[in-house]
């Protein structure tokens, strides 16, 4: 994800999309003792998985430690050599299962399952054959107080022509003090997916024209939101 294909006034361009640095640097912490740096190590716990803990009687735990399998405890594992696998919890031999199906269970606000569907793997759609389209305009103050923006990127140009294109877009938004809703897909009404297997976001375009030493310069940002700024609905008593 380093390019966006965007359309404005019937023209489109593929232009670079930049990650933004944080204004405040990361806190670089190290944990150490006098012997040196402390590092994480993957270990086996030695939990006795052949046992059903709910079937244990108190006297069994008082007299011995059946919940532990000490021969299996403390083995150091190389994270690089481990991989994820699925198994049937009812299978005591615990063999990896292949040819499984991945599903998405969708739950409503009350935690009730409302949909069961094949697992959805989203494809990035911002540098697609269909350009990202500029849709509905919203006053800046309304957008900033109505939505929770979780990610931001800056669009930049690569030559004079794309600069004119992006500058014009930024100027229009700046002069009208509006933000524009962005939409992907053939109809330009789909949420933006910034990367493969990524989450969908509503994209908003923010434009600003510089003043003083920044005269003739522009700023064009994509702000992403997947949440409105509001409280959860209160369930009726």
């Amino acid at each position, binding site marked *: 994800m380093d390019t966006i294909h965007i359309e404005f006034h019937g023209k489109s361009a593929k232009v670079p999309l930049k990650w933004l640095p944080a204004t405040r640097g990361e806190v670089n912490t190290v944990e150490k003792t006098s012997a040196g740096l402390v590092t994480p190590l993957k270990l086996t716990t030695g939990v006795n998985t052949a046992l059903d803990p709910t079937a244990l009687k108190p006297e069994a735990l008082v007299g011995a430690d059946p919940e532990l399998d000490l021969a299996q405890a403390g083995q150091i594992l190389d994270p690089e050599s481990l991989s994820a696998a699925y198994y049937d919890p009812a299978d005591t031999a615990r063999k990896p299962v292949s040819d499984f199906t991945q599903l998405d269970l969708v739950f409503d606000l009350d935690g009730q399952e409302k949909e069961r569907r094949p697992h959805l793997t989203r494809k990035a759609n911002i540098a697609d054959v269909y350009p990202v389209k500029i849709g509905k305009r919203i006053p800046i103050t309304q957008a900033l107080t109505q939505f929770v923006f979780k990610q931001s990127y800056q669009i930049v140009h690569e030559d004079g022509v*794309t600069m004119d294109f992006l500058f014009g877009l930024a100027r229009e938004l700046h002069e009208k003090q509006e933000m524009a*809703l962005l939409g992907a897909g053939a109809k330009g009404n789909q949420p933006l997916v910034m990367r493969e297997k990524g989450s969908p976001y509503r994209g908003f375009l923010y434009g600003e024209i510089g003043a003083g030493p920044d005269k003739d310069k522009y*700023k064009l940002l994509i702000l992403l939101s997947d949440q409105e700024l509001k409280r959860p609905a209160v369930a009726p008593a």
Partner: protein
Amino acid sequence: MKELKFNLNGKTISAGLASKVDKKSLYGYAKRIVEKDGRPLARGILRPDGHLLRRDELTTAYVDPQGTPVEAVVTEIDGKPAQLQPSSFDQESPLTPVSLTTLVGFNVTDVYPLENVTLPPGLYQTAFTYRKALQPKEAFLLVKEGEAYLLAGRMKKTAFVGLNVAYEFFDAESEPQEESEELDFSML
């Protein structure tokens, strides 16, 4: 509800912090499951010898170069012992009124509704940490008519850009746009 205290121009202002609001609490959520022939499967960790571990059979230990820390572990920042900052509930956090557009480029990670806020509508810059932390998060109080929120997150740096370099540019067919319906935020 826990109480937060802020300081605006030397005056102490209190507000109640309600539970965090996330996407799940507004729209529900989607959970991925794996099954075969209608039976749900569990996720485990496969070792190179073919042995499959349950997730509770694996843990992480933090050790020093000699195998295990026998003395207290010290956290350092830039070579100096790090000091934990108090929780925002244990101190007054300064408030600075800022323009609403300061929110542009602020990546929100946490949203908390605030109760009993006596500030006039606007945006106020502050810092917030629920628990003791090495560095509080950057935060804003967004006060609207009748409601207020604390937004914690990370401010990103943006820049004005001027004339530059060379690149491709082409015309595209303009398609008739459908009037979009109500914005759907339940993209699960």
